[in-house]
Each structure stands twice: as structure tokens, then as C-alpha cells.
């Protein structure tokens, strides 16, 4: 019936067209761009160079350093975000009178955009920390963190954790509330202490939540840009320039469109591989009741 086809077309075509123009076509053209040498000026020629951009980026010391920093950042962030999110979730689900209020407060930072969060914390890490150091005398810990390469990276982890802990908390809460009361009661009656109830019942049954939270923090941390821009802008020098910022600077900062796009494609491949591997591994550990 032709009528049916027309309706199908009317309902699906508008969004599919937009999606093609905004996502699909740029993705495919992007692969082509990664094989050319081009400075971004449309009248200048795009010279096909094969895999040269990909071999060049492997010798780009600043790029490799930024990749290594991103890995360090992601590992720290993965740990701190999920630990804090889980602790928050356990507190909120323990049946205290103020649980709802606490959940509301702890989730709030997640709604504020990364750019703005970064600026708030920039003040805290520069002037705030310096003052606390002067007042308490603990200036080996409390000094301007953003001028030290290692501490600046930790500062990024702190801000990212502040932003994301509430988010993972919400997901862990949903997971914990899905565990039946009866199972927990039965374990209590059988004499399992709180440690056993946690490690033998709660954590295994929370595996689906771990899958989701690890995926979200992993991809979020790998792709971080806004906080990086407003908190450190890559500094001191280039020590906290993470992956996404390096790609942006290569393309729009230095005008190396081909090389930058090759980095961007590699960026996608790494994110896809890492997140898919993680989901497969954690999915395998999920248990059924």
C-alpha cells in the first residue's frame, strides 16, 4: 500500500535527514580529512597524504603526553567518582529521615555546566587554597594547585568528581533500591554481618549499576573538555592538556586540519574500544537472582 510508505516517510524522514547532515556525513567526511594535509582555508588544496597523519601523530610528543595524562586522569576519576557515588548512595538508602534532602543536595553540582564549575574551582584552588595555607601553615598541601603539573591534574580530578559523584549516586540508589528487602532480612537472620551483606549480596547484585556508572564515568572522563578549558586551560604549560583539548588546539589553534582530524578519529576509536571492552567485561560479571 503506497499510503503506508508515505506515512513512514513523513514520520521518519525529517529527523533522519537532520541526523545525516549533522552526524553521519561529518563522520564520513572526517575519515577522509584524516588522510589529507590541509590548513583549513577553503581555497588552499587538500593534498592526499595517505597514512602520514597517523604516523606523524605517533611522533607528536605533546600528543602522546596528553594521551598519557588523559589515561591518568581517567583512572583517578573512575576510582574517586564511583567510590564517592557509592558511599553517598549507601548513606541515602540507609533509612534516615533526611535522606531525600541529602540526595537533592548531593546531586546539585551535576546540573551546573562544566565550564562554570571550572571557574568556581579556579578561584578556590588559586586564592582559596593559598589563603588556607597561609592561615593554617599547611602550605605544603594548601598552595596554588594550578601552578604545579601534578596537583593541577589532581585538581581536575577533584572538580570532575564533584560534578559526577551525585550522578553516579542516583544510579547506584536505583540499583540498591532494586535489591529485595527479603534477601537482606534473610541474610541478617542467618547471621551475616554488614561486611558480608555488602560484599556477598549488595555488590554482586549491583553489577548492572557498576556497568552503567563505569561506562558513564569512563566516557565522560575521556571526553572531558569544558572543565579542562575553564580550570587549567591546559596549563601549567601543556601539562594538563587532555586528549580533547589537544585535538581542538591542533585543528583550530594551529590550523593542522588533517593531522588534527586524524587525532580525532583515533580519539573515537580508542573511546569505542575502551568503553565496549569495559561493558563486555562488567556485563559478564552480572548475576541473576
Amino acid at each position: 500500500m503506497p499510503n503506508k510508505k508515505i506515512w513512514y516517510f513523513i514520520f521518519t524522514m525529517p529527523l533522519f535527514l537532520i541526523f545525516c547532515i549533522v552526524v553521519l556525513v561529518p563522520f564520513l567526511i572526517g575519515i577522509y580529512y584524516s588522510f589529507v594535509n590541509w590548513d583549513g582555508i577553503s581555497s588552499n588544496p587538500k593534498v592526499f597524504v595517505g597514512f602520514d597523519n597517523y604516523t606523524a601523530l605517533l611522533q607528536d610528543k605533546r600528543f602522546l603526553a596528553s594521551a598519557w595524562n588523559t589515561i591518568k586522569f581517567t583512572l583517578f576519576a573512575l576510582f574517586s567518582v564511583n567510590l564517592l557515588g557509592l558511599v553517598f548512595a549507601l548513606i541515602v538508602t540507609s533509612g534516615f529521615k533526611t535522606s531525600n534532602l541529602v540526595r537533592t543536595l548531593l546531586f546539585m553540582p551535576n546540573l551546573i555546566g562544566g565550564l562554570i564549575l571550572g571557574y568556581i574551582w579556579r578561584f578556590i584552588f588559586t586564592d582559596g587554597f593559598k589563603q588556607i595555607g597561609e592561615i593554617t601553615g599547611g602550605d605544603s598541601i594548601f598552595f596554588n594547585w594550578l601552578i604545579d603539573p601534578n596537583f593541577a591534574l589532581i585538581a581536575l580530578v577533584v572538580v570532575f568528581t564533584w560534578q559526577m559523584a551525585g550522578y553516579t549516586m542516583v544510579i547506584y540508589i536505583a540499583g540498591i533500591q532494586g535489591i529485595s528487602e527479603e534477601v537482606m532480612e534473610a541474610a541478617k537472620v542467618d547471621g551475616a554481618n554488614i561486611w558480608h551483606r555488602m560484599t556477598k549480596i549488595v555488590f554482586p547484585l549491583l553489577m548492572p549499576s557498576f556497568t552503567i556508572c563505569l561506562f558513564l564515568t569512563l566516557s565522560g572522563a575521556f571526553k572531558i573538555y569544558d572543565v579542562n578549558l575553564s580550570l587549567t586551560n591546559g596549563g601549567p604549560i601543556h601539562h594538563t592538556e587532555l586528549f580533547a583539548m589537544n585535538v581542538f588546539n591542533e585543528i583550530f589553534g594551529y590550523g593542522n586540519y588533517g593531522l588534527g582530524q586524524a587525532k580525532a578519529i583515533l580519539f573515537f576509536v580508542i573511546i569505542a574500544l575502551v568503553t565496549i571492552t569495559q561493558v563486555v567485561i562488567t556485563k559478564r560479571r552480572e548475576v541473576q537472582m
Partner: protein
Amino acid sequence: MNNAKNGIISLLIVMISLLFLSPIYIMIVNSFKTRAELYENVLSLPGSFSFEYYTAAIKKMNFFVALGNSLYVTTATVIFVIVLASMMAWMLVRRDNVWSKIIFFLFVATMLIPFQTLMMPLMQVMDWIRTYLHLPMLNTHGGLIFMNIGFHAGIAVFLYHGFIKSIPVALEEAAVLDGCNTFGVFWRIIFPLLKSISVTVAILDVIASWNDYLLPSLVLSEKGLRTIQLSTFYFFGEFTIVWNQAMAGLTLTIVPIIIFYSIAQKYIIKGIAAGAVK
């Protein structure tokens, strides 16, 4: 656990969560302090409450124009995404043919692509559309909204798809027998049933669109078009940072978020959990 103990711990955990939010406290108190006060003690309450740094920040950031721009872009994006994604998802579920499978796969698979991989070629495509089709895709709110729709389409179609699968077809068949056309069936019967998932999609889109910095920074170059995120960025870039004024500016940018959160708090937390778990 007895009542008194519960009460004490309840109070304690509220205090811990307030401590967790101390950066917001620091931001607010310092937005009222004079320079001297600010450099004396970051943590203390301000000696007097004057709004002079707020008026200065509003002027420098062109705050109300930026607020209007952000509201416009976000609202339009959310409305288009809800209408187009729900329509598409319904068709994909109800006509489960090869095309539907391919489209759905493409939408879900491309969700993994980071924005940085698409940004440069995307700007090229938009430039071609402007040059050859004479459509103003760059440096307009319309262009930004168009691109927002494309980027939010994947998750929205995915969420609607999962939800619509659980709605029985029998409802629609009855409406068709009553003489409803496809358009009528969707808008009168199906769309009202999608309310809860539409709220989830709307909330995720509002947050993503409101807080987005990178895409608007590439699309919009004219000063008068800047969104809140852009005007904040240029506020910090153009002047040497005067922290009390900067804190006033940042506090202003957070006010709309706090209002949104206090109105829709229940839906936001539910929506976030639903959006992530699916």
C-alpha cells in the same frame, strides 16, 4: 535504630552534604565582598551586602540577552527533539522492516562518537550549506538549534523506542477502525501515553543544551547571539579577573539552574536515573 540516634545521624549527614556544597557557599559570599575583604578571608561572611558587583557583572556579560538566547535555543531544541524523535521512534517500532533496523542501529551506534571527532567536518558541511544552498547555518540560533537536534536525536530515539515497545498495538488498531488516520493515531492516542518518557527526554536535553559550550562556541561568533556559557567564557577571557565580580557573574549563571532544579527536582532525579539505566 532508635529515634534519637536516627535524628542525630540524619542531622549529621545533612551537614556533610552542606559541606560538600561549600564551593557554592564560597562563590556566593565572595560575590558580595570588597577586594580587601576577599583577600583577607575567602571563607568569612561579607561585611555588607551590596549588589554593585552584580550590576557590573550583568553589564559586562550582557546577562539578560545571554539568558534570553539560552532560553530560546534550549526551548526550541527540546520541542523539536520531542516531536521528531517520538514520531520516528513510533514508526521504527511499529514498522519493523529492514530500514527501521538500519536507522535504529545507526542512531544508537553513533552515540559513541565524541563531539571532537565531528566538529571540524561538521563546520565544513555547514559552510557548504551556507555557500551553495544559501541557508544561514552558521552564526544563527537556527543553525545551532538544527545541530543540537542532530546531536540529541540518538539518545531520544533510543529512549522512546524502548518505551513504545511496551505499549500494546491493540489501542492503535481500535483507533484505525474508528477512522483515524496515521497522524491522528499518533497525536491523539500514542503521544499522550509517552508523557513520562517525554519528561525524561526533555530533562536530559535541557541539561545538555543549556550547559553546552563547545558547539555554540564554534557556531556563534556574533556578540549579541551568545548563550550563557559563551558570555561566561568571554567574561573570563576579556578582562583580567576581578574575583568578586566574577563570582557575582557565576552566581547569576547558576540562578536559572537552581530555579529549574527546585521546580522539577523530582522529575530530574528520576529522569537522570531512567535515562542512564535504559
